[in-house]
């Protein structure tokens, strides 16, 4: 079918690029974006499972007043780990994992621009996450909330190691996230198929590019904030030592300058997914494509200008509160435009109710509700009551759980056939959808009421007799209903892996390039470099008359492959470098400087090995007739 040229390995034996194609070793050394995407997706679901267990224990503890399932310390650890895991280790990497897999496929590329950097990003994320979880066995998990306000994190208030695990773990996984975001930007800007102008990019890819830009600007402030606390705790600096006159509020600024963009980092990939699912299943192009892109960019921009709406009660004064309140309202405009345009896409379509679009519809409803409560808490005077109550908890679960998570469930159902070549059973999927969505609302709707009745968040118990019993009990029961739904999803997906491989290239009558290649895609993705001359390239090649274009001659792509397709070689260095950093962090945490220095040196050695490893891999040459 195709011939292959192995490229010259580099000089030293040590620096040889490994060539395993199957087995554990091949996964440890892989640089293939599809394999890394799968690793990302599986890891984030694994972390999500842990966070879900934590959430269910939280709900159990709050079932009735004065439950003693866990003690206050354990409770603090539970919601901290739940929040940290969901945000940093589950939802955000899930978006990145989907991007890893599908962005190159959607733009007609063979891989990301920097495959080894991509591998490094994955490994450091997962090691960082695992590191935080080892804290449970090493003296207690972090217990300061996912926002870890100073000075709760200072050594004098929190001598245990939990905070160190939080800081180091998120510090290094943040490095990985940033690296992957840079990689995605370069990939999307540079590796688009010939003819795929920016305004012909699939919307998911667009949203991932915007997300990546947000990541590279939002993570450094967080990294600095982590660094400051790490230095305080490990080397005795004074960044958050109040006796030295430090300002704890600084942490809140740095955290939220990251933190608010972060919530859009979570939701924009979800917006992208929705913008793929809705047009596909209503058989219509996305309504107002340019406006959708523009509103995405607007949201990203504005996202950096609203951070103090999380700090309305910290005494910044009426002027600051007014300014940030108004910027927060303004964010509602582009978001509203998106919602309206999705409805506009459905309008006049021919909607096929598969599981993915059911999730998309659940998303529309839930996210709109969550957005409206967002606008409410963006009013400083209302927020003075709602802040740090269950009203806020309800708000962000509506946008993250009912928004991002539902969208990603939809994405799993949507892209599963592409990733595995197998179809998931629709009937069970719909039942699972029903329980999940119903459970979700039974779980979180009463929390609005609890919040308005004055129930603060992050409390492990609440007094009886002030009317909080019913709402909490309903909420906990909701979590059980949702749990049933989730178990059904799990069964559904596992069954999916057993289904016959009969999905074909294009089970949904899709619109974008990933549906033009076999499922699962071969490791080189495209046998012929696709060439594009319109939006929704795959749709245009199937139904040219509806797009008023003549699809480009596929053979045209072949000239871009004239020199052969370069398939990059595998490498040990990304994984080992990530491991070295992780071990170094343990060294610093346990004041074991020898270990820290050895790890540091190994890391530097890895960088050199990485740089001088040589190109590796091989070239594929496709026979002309075969490819045509």
């Amino acid at each position, binding site marked *: 079918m195709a011939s292959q040229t*192995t490229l010259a390995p580099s000089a030293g034996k040590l620096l040889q690029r490994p060539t395993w194609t199957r087995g554990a070793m091949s996964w440890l050394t892989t640089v293939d974006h599809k394999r890394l995407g799968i690793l990302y997706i599986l890891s984030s679901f694994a972390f999500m499972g842990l966070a879900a267990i934590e959430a269910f224990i939280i709900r159990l503890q709050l079932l009735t007043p004065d439950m003693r399932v866990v003690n206050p310390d354990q409770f603090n650890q539970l919601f901290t780990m739940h929040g940290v895991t969901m945000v940093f280790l589950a939802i955000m990497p899930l978006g990145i994992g989907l991007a890893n897999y599908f962005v190159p496929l959607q733009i007609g590329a063979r891989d990301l*621009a920097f495959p080894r950097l991509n591998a490094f990003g994955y490994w450091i994320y997962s090691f960082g996450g695992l590191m935080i979880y080892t804290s449970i066995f090493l003296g207690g998990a972090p217990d300061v909330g996912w926002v870890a306000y100073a000075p709760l994190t200072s050594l004098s208030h929190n001598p245990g190691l939990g905070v160190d695990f939080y800081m180091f773990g998120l510090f290094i996984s943040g490095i990985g996230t940033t690296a992957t975001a840079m990689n995605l930007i370069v990939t999307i800007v*540079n590796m688009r198929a*010939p003819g795929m102008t920016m305004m012909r990019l699939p919307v998911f890819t667009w949203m991932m590019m915007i997300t990546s830009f947000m990541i590279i600007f939002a993570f450094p402030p967080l990294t600095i*904030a982590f660094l400051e606390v790490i230095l305080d705790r490990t080397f005795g600096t004074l960044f958050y030592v109040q006796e030295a006159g430090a300002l704890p509020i600084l942490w809140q600024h740095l955290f939220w*300058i990251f933190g608010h963009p972060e919530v859009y980092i979570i939701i924009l990939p979800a917006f992208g997914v929705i913008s793929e699912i809705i047009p596909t299943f209503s058989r219509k192009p996305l309504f107002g494509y340019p406006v959708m892109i523009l509103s995405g960019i607007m949201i990203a921009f504005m996202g950096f200008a609203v951070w103090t709406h999380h700090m309305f009660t910290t005494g910044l004064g009426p002027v600051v509160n007014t300014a940030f309140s108004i910027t927060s309202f303004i964010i509602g405009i582009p978001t509203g435009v998106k919602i309206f345009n999705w409805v506009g896409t459905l309008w006049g379509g021919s909607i096929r109710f598969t599981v993915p679009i059911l999730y998309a519809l659940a998303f529309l409803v839930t996210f709109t509700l969550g957005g409206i409560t967002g606008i409410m808490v963006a009013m400083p005077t209302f927020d003075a009551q709602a802040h740090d109550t269950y009203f806020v908890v309800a708000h962000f679960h509506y946008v993250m759980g009912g928004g991002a998570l539902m969208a990603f469930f939809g994405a799993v159902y949507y892209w599963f056939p592409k990733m595995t070549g197998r179809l998931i059973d629709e009937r069970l999927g719909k039942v699972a959808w029903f329980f999940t969505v119903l459970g979700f609302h039974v779980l979180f709707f009463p929390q609005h009421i609890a919040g308005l009745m004055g129930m603060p968040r992050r409390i492990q118990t609440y007094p009886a007799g002030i009317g909080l019993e019913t709402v909490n009990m309903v909420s906990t029961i909701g979590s059980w209903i949702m749990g049933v739904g989730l178990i059904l999803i799990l069964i559904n997906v596992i069954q999916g892996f057993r289904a016959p491989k009969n999905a074909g290239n294009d089970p949904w009558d899709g619109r974008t390039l990933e549906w033009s290649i076999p499922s699962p895609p071969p490791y080189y993705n495209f046998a012929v470099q696709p060439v594009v001359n319109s939006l929704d390239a795959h749709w245009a090649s199937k139904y040219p008359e509806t797009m008023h274009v003549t699809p480009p001659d596929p053979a045209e792509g072949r000239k871009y492959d004239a020199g052969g397709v370069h398939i990059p070689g595998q490498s040990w260095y990304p994984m080992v470098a990530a491991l070295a950093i992780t071990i170094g962090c343990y060294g610093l945490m346990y004041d074991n400087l020898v270990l820290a220095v050895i790890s540091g040196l190994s890391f530097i050695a890895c960088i050199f090995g990485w740089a001088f490893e040589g*190109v590796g891999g091989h070239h594929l040459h496709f026979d002309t007739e075969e490819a045509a």
Partner: protein
Amino acid sequence: MSAQPAAPAASEQPVPYRATKLPDVKLLMWVFLASDTMFFGSLIGTYLAYKDRSLVGPLPVDVFDIPLTTVSTFVLLMSSFLMVLSLHAIRQNDIPKFRLWTAGVAFFGSIFLGFQVYEFVHFVNAGLSIHQNLFGTTFFILTGTHGVHVTVGVIWLVALIMDSYLRPLGAKDSVYVEIAGLYWHFVDIVWIVIFTVVYLVEFV
């Protein structure tokens, strides 16, 4: 699929299609520097938030030596100039000149670091340390982070020179020098900001 033993050397590979015609590494460097701007921005922000909040001395006016730091700033600026020459040389395939100028950059960078080490030692002797007051904490971490950037730059440049002995470098590889140059100029600019915001502002 049959593996063919005949393998073209790395540099003979055809250049794959790129939408912007810019090399990937160059874009990556731009993106990285954009991100790094926020990194330094946050550190400088922290410095400014804690300016004049130290409860005990020594304070900036007690320790800063503007003429000395001006000299080291000038040295760093000059190194950027040499960096331009170095890039020009490799584009002309003039490897000896390339080595000379790159070594010059690395050398000037090291002198800058020497000044910084001297300054740090001097400050510590004057009683300023990361544990002393907020000024010490924020000053050392900010300028120290910058120093680490310079150090990485110097190591990178030395690695480039070493590489020129190991492999036949030429104009086709100039992009690798270019990105090192971008990095170097960026670090230089950041220093000018730090010099202004941290040092000069104290004396106006």
